[in-house]
């Protein structure tokens, strides 16, 4: 009896193959480098930031980049570099947490839907159809409009908006896997449904889920910045790249760095996740190589 990836040794071998292939993919490594850079910035922000990111210092308002303030200061005299470093915490934090929320709800729903089928599947999938009926960022905007504006609510909103992707993806994988011989054998051995799903099906659905999560973090960061830009996400004075960019546009003609720098950071981090995701997809799931 053959399983997709059964024993620990097989998994270890598979992981080594994936890493080898990933290392050979230059663009993917560039993506990983960009992500690592921003992750380090986020983790080390309190050590690296030369000034407090929140407390205003009006005497230094709107200074051009200089040795004292490498990226200049904003309209309240706050050091832009310090705000960018702490902003990395916010943006990456939103990205990861909302993906965790989306996956935590979407994966079990998709697994149950695919495994049990029947009425449960029909009911759950029609629910997902309703969520999918809201294009792009709109679902997140609706959730924020109900729950109220703010960073935490934006995270939940983006998480909720990512549920359909995870549900559909997991359901599709489970539908294919549950027909495999090793699952029939597991059932015949009398293993419980929960054990079959958790121990034997979900581990073999991980590849597409990991790839999707990489792209989803990028989308979540973009959406969070979009919500922040619209005034529906992080609220002042908390440093968030989208909100910083939005405030900076008032001074766009005279102090363009206030918009250029946060925008460039969002662009780079999203690019990083997309490049890394592309490489991961090619290594983990070559059949899914589409575009």
């Amino acid at each position, binding site marked *: 009896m053959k399983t997709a990836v059964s024993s620990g040794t097989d998994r270890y071998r598979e992981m080594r193959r994936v890493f080898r292939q990933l290392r050979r993919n230059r663009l993917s490594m560039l993506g990983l480098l960009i992500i690592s850079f921003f992750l380090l910035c986020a983790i080390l922000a309190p050590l690296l930031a030369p000034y407090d990111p929140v407390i205003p210092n009006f005497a230094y308002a709107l200074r051009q980049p200089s040795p004292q303030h490498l990226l200049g200061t904003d309209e309240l005299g706050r050091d832009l570099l310090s705000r960018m470093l702490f902003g990395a915490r916010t943006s990456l934090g939103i990205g990861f947490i909302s993906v965790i929320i989306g996956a935590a709800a979407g994966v079990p729903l998709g697994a149950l839907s695919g495994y049990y089928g029947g009425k449960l599947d029909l009911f759950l999938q029609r629910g997902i159809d309703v969520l999918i*009926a809201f*294009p792009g*960022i*709109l679902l997140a905007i609706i959730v924020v409009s*109900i729950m109220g504006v703010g960073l935490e609510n934006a995270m939940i909103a983006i998480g909720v908006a990512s549920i359909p992707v995870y549900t559909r993806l997991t359901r599709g994988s489970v539908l294919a896997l549950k027909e495999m011989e090793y699952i029939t054998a597991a059932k015949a051995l009398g293993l419980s449904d929960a054990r079959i799903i958790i121990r034997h099906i979900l581990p073999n659905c991980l590849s597409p889920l990991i790839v999707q999560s990489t792209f989803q973090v990028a989308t979540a960061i973009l959406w969070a910045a979009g919500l922040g830009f619209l005034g529906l996400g992080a609220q002042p004075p908390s440093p968030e790249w*989208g909100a910083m960019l939005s405030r900076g546009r008032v001074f766009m003609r005279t102090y363009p760095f206030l918009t250029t720098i946060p925008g*460039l950071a969002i662009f780079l981090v999203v690019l990083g996740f*997309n490049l890394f995701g592309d490489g991961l997809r090619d290594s983990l799931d070559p059949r899914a190589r*589409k*575009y």
Partner: protein
Amino acid sequence: MRTYIVQRLLLSVPVIFGVSLLVFSIVRLLPGDPAIAVAGVHATPAYISQVREELGLDKGLHVQYYLFAANLLRGDLGTSTFYKRPVSAILLERFPRTLELTVAALLLAALLGVTAGIFSAVTRNSIIDGAAMLASLAGLAAPVFWLALMLQLFFAVHLGIFPSAGSGTIFHLILPSITLGAASAGLLARMTRSSMLEVLRQEYITTARAKGLSETIVIGKHALKNALIPVLTVLGLQFGSLLGGAVLTETIFAWPGVGRLLVDAILTRDYPVVQGTVLVLSVSFVGINLAVDILYAYLDPRIRFDVKGGAG
């Protein structure tokens, strides 16, 4: 084909019902007393009870939904608490503007994306291919609002070629449609490239080449026709996504569409407008997806036979 269309139409009914339920819930799910949330915390008790009555919040939930659905079928989406006008009248003014922007963005994305994708596939692994794919990745990664501001800064402020915001002339449409269409162009370029490469590997292309047909005929006539089928589906789906994306673009370019209306309505807590806008955008999205599915089934008969056979 007719069976397929009827099936797809029937499948849309529960979705639209679900959408209407969700839209109905927007006001009802507000934390605290929804009437106070809509009227504002400083409103007088008399005004709060007036709002409660206007929104039907004093009745049972099933009665509220019945009234909501009945009004909806009559085209009555309530009255805006901010503009003091019927929501349907506001949407009738604003929605065509959003459609105008979305269609312009889609055309631009299709033109740029598909062209870049074809050239990339034909010149695989060349500098053109690398540059086109890099540009497509950049289009996908650039935040809409940042791209908008950069375009405004360069083309409106520095060069003065296009107006930085507003609407009225074709020139007002250019920067917003580039902004809105950039990500779709990137996606379409990647999609077209991979679809073309797949088709170019097929045996019938080798046969066409072996027959001595020119490369232009092979690519333009034989390969493109099949390669564009999946691209067309993505193009259709992008149309729907662009409707959602218009929220940001319209806000930045002061474009008088429903996207900007929605953001303003959320910030002014004008919930009847929030409900109406969300409903119109999502029902349009469902309609577009339905049209795309039908078009895809028409172009690729395997899809409708799959559904008949019970696989889809």
